[in-house]
């Protein structure tokens, strides 16, 4: 498989400056012929709580689960979990994983027809069962799809303790159907499990969403890719964030790996490209000094797939040190955009209209400046944008819950900066 990493930065620092920023773009052309080199396992978790009866959600969920099963490649191990007050394995027999063939997929499809909505929401228990099933096949590319329509009903702190225990052991993409679920809760799950979160407001769109998730999962060729970051003595990593295709802070996921080196989990990789923002504080150097501020490697186990260097060069030439790197500036703005939207939504919920207007205004400005039209359009469903350039907005009196939740879940989606400029 071919991976490449390229660092974009202004390596020149003013004398006395200590903060080094770089955007590292990691691109993979996927494994040989775009095929997996090892095995893969899939778990589909469908919320079967009582509320799923409403608005034809259960029927749509059945359709979606069937569509997802249809996308599973031959030879992939899989299981289907029915989410009620406990986790119940719907297919195959409890504790087992099926090997995908036309026959097992047909059996799974008829099992899905038996799904009934009657029970509670216990996301922690569902994830725990998925973890137990996937643990049977270490080394597989492990992925799960989680569908829910409500708030978690488990006692406070249980879900957090489960995420603490199993976080990062498999990738979990989360989807909320309808508007009675909590964005922050599913985001927490997606962040811990290195997956995505999104709203499917209309049940009839579920099948398309499941198909897309499963197709993407089947395209993954490497299961557990990590970013390994070396920094010099007396330097500290301020943050490591994924900034494209969406913002995800990896700083807290660091595990130490030898002197001055830490690893950050990136999850599964296929043929794709992602950008990471790395910020390191280093001891200041003298004019002309050149320091390696970070050596960033993409690794799978002990195998180094690619490497890129983040440098610091001190100069008293202000023309060099004040130069702004487009990539760094762009993604700093995209991260601020996500923060501003989430702060705006929180303030609006708390009834603090003044703060909400300020935050949404800043968000509109950032989205407009950076050409993030998707986010700008989502913002326009929550506020009237009078002048995006100056960030002049008015809160809408009546906002659809689904619109606000879509803005919230998709606030972290970023756009890529033009490389040529």
């Amino acid at each position, binding site marked *: 498989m071919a991976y490449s990493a390229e660092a974009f930065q202004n390596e020149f620092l003013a004398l006395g400056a200590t903060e080094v920023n770089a955007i590292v773009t990691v691109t993979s052309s996927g494994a040989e012929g775009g095929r997996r080199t090892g095995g893969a396992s899939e778990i589909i978790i469908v919320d079967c709580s009582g509320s799923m009866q409403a608005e034809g959600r259960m029927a749509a969920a059945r359709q979606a689960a069937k569509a997802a099963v249809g996308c599973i490649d031959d030879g992939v191990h899989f299981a289907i979990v029915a989410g009620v007050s406990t986790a119940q394995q719907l297919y195959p027999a409890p504790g087992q994983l099926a090997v995908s063939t036309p026959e097992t997929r047909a059996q799974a499809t008829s099992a899905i027809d038996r799904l009934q909505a009657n029970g509670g929401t216990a996301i922690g228990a569902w994830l725990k069962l998925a973890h137990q099933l996937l643990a049977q096949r270490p080394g597989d590319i492990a992925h799960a799809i989680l569908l829910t329509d409500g708030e978690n009903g488990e006692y406070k702190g249980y879900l957090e303790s489960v995420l603490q225990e199993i976080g990062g052991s498999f990738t979990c993409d989360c989807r909320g159907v309808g508007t009675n679920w909590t964005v922050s809760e599913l985001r927490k799950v997606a962040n811990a499990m290195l997956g995505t979160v999104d709203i499917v407001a209309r049940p009839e769109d579920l099948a398309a969403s499941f198909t897309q998730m499963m197709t993407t999962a089947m395209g993954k060729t490497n299961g557990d890719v990590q970013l390994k970051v070396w920094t010099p003595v007396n330097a500290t990593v301020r943050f490591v964030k994924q900034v494209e295709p969406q913002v995800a802070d990896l700083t807290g996921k660091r595990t130490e790996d030898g002197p001055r080196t830490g690893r950050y989990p990136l999850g599964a990789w296929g043929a794709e490209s992602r950008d990471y923002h790395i910020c390191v504080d280093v001891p200041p150097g003298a004019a002309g000094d050149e320091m*390696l501020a970070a050596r960033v490697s993409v690794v799978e186990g002990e195998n180094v797939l690619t490497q890129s260097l983040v440098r610091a060069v001190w100069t008293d030439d202000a023309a060099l040190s004040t130069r702004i790197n487009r990539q760094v500036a762009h993604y700093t703005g995209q991260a601020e955009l996500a923060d501003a939207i989430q702060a705006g939504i929180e303030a609006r919920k708390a009834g603090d209209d003044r703060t909400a207007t300020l935050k949404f205004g800043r968000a509109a400005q950032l989205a407009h400046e950076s050409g993030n039209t998707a986010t700008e359009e989502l913002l326009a469903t929550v506020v009237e944008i009078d002048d995006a350039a100056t960030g002049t907005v008015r809160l809408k009196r009546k906002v659809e819950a689904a619109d606000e939740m879509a803005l919230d879940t998709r606030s972290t989606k970023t756009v890529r900066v033009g490389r040529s400029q």
Partner: protein
Amino acid sequence: MSDCPNCPDERAAGAAFCENCGKALATGETLDVGADCASCGSPGSVGDDGYCQNCGMLAGRPRDHVEADAGPVAAAVTDRGLRHHRNEDAMWLAVRGADVDVVVCDGVSSSADPDVASESAAEAAGKALALDAGVADAIREAAEAVAALATTGDPRRLASSPACTIVAARVRDGEAEYGWVGDSRAYWVALETGHAEPLTEDDSWASHAIAMGADPQAAWNDPRAHAITAWLGADAGPVQPRTATLRPDTAGVLVLCSDGLWNYRTEPAAFAETVLACVRENADLVSAARALVAFAVEAGGADNITVALVPLTP
């Protein structure tokens, strides 16, 4: 017998630079994997990529300080100075018997990759001189090499073409043919009288203003003083090197240098005084060149410094 560690060319024998492959035979620091770190003192910590595995500092850039020593025939030294983060000057020195080819180039800091421009120019001109081209032709070769850089490698070079100055000399039978583009200079300093003769006239705003009748002091204090009006680069237009020949009638030293040196001695008399002091106080030529560089560093080291010394007798 070859003296060049990089290629088996005999012409390299006795040359400070191999005339065939252009690699320096006499250089300054080289990358020393596994050496102790000069910054933090960690033993054996310099890694494969040249950075200390403990403190991250770069162990050394080969171009930061380079010396070329051709014994009593010629010597040249280039140094990063104090304020610039890298050495954007480059030089070429090759000798065969009493024949000398010498080139000094200074990268234009505001252009993209000026260090590559100066290195390419020095090498192209040096190689042309080695093949017995005249100085004007050698400078034109250098101009073509630098102009070609704009369309290779980093796309930023298209927006701001790599550029540099050049001053070159070709010494044959005690005569020196020399030529230049930009504000790198050549001087003739007579040993006995201490008389200094500027051989070049800068292609710079100040020189043009003075030539048009402006007050020299006012011209040199103008912010535009050092803006060069001719250079090598894709955006330079047709390059017309100015050339002349020096036939000394007394013993002296031909000095080629970048503005990192002459900026601290703008008056020819003061320049000659410093050159003579360095030549007299040092036993050999390369030490004298090193002393001139040290003088510029102590005076502030605001720019990269390159100086080449070629003694001539009638």
